[in-house]
């Protein structure tokens, strides 16, 4: 599980650098790793506040960036239903992009296996993120601006995408989503991402509804 965190490592370090550059309190910036646990949301909040935006406005933008997590919640609801209550309340805390994607990639038909795998993945990523964002803050003065391996996170998402695809209809959805995301990539606050996901899911819903 630890090696799968590697692609996120440059981002954890970069977040640390962003905290220091934004001028917000280092401890406060780092606390967002524990309280929010979501790289893009944390980067959005800290950057906006550092640029002088009102905290209330920065929160609104941050929540837009996080909105895709609602879809993860819908998708995993059937899997969580059969789980113990403590897990249904604890699990969502670590429901980030990578953890969600890993549940879609692995064959986890057994409910106990699902829970164990989910918790292991979720809290490994959580621990590594908290550790390396803290390290990023401490090492900020010696970390170069472009680490040069930002491509790693794209590779990770591409790999997760390919491993998650099981049916031809999903290939169509992925291609459509990628195309729309590219077309709307100029929108602020990663809105293009949400437009792409919602639009491609609408098309997928119509297709699946007709075929069943």
């Amino acid at each position: 599980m630890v090696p799968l965190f590697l692609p996120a490592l440059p981002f954890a370090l970069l977040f640390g650098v962003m905290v220091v550059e934004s001028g917000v309190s280092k401890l406060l910036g780092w606390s967002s790793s524990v309280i929010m646990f979501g790289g893009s949301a944390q980067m959005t909040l800290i950057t906006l506040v550092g640029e002088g935006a009102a905290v209330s406005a920065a929160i609104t933008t941050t929540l837009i960036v996080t909105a895709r997590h609602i879809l993860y919640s819908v998708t995993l609801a059937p899997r969580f239903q059969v789980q113990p209550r403590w897990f249904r309340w604890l699990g969502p805390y670590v429901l980030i992009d990578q953890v969600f994607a890993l549940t879609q990639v692995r064959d986890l038909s057994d409910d106990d296996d699902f829970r164990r795998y989910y918790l292991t993945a979720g809290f490994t990523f959580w621990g590594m993120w908290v550790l390396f964002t803290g390290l990023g803050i401490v090492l900020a003065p010696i970390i170069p601006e472009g680490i040069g391996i930002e491509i790693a996170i794209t590779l990770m998402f591409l790999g997760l995408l390919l491993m998650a695809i099981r049916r031809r209809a999903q290939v169509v959805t992925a291609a459509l989503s990628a195309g729309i995301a590219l077309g709307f990539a100029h929108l602020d606050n990663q809105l293009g991402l949400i437009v792409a996901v919602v639009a491609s899911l609408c098309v997928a819903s119509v297709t699946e509804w007709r075929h069943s």
Partner: protein
Amino acid sequence: MSLFWGIVLAGLGAYAMRASFVVLLQGVTFPDRVIRILDHVGPAVMAALVVTTLTGPSGQLEAGPVEFLTLGIMAGVTLWRKDLLIGLLVALAVFFALNAVLA
């Protein structure tokens, strides 16, 4: 509002979104048709994330031939070996090698 409370609110918001359906839809039976539609969420989000991480703030592609070649190798090796980690390691090795050669 202080930044601390901003972080707390953003954290609560993120948790609420992640927990929303997991907690609310307790005891609801999902028809097969809905499950089949939910199968599309992963591919849709991951594909959009690939594109988003490759584009800059004004929507331009920020990847050159080396990046695209690396992505191609990632795709090829991952599909061939059916292993994410092997794909990642090979792709990153090629990426570093190409950058070293071209530097």
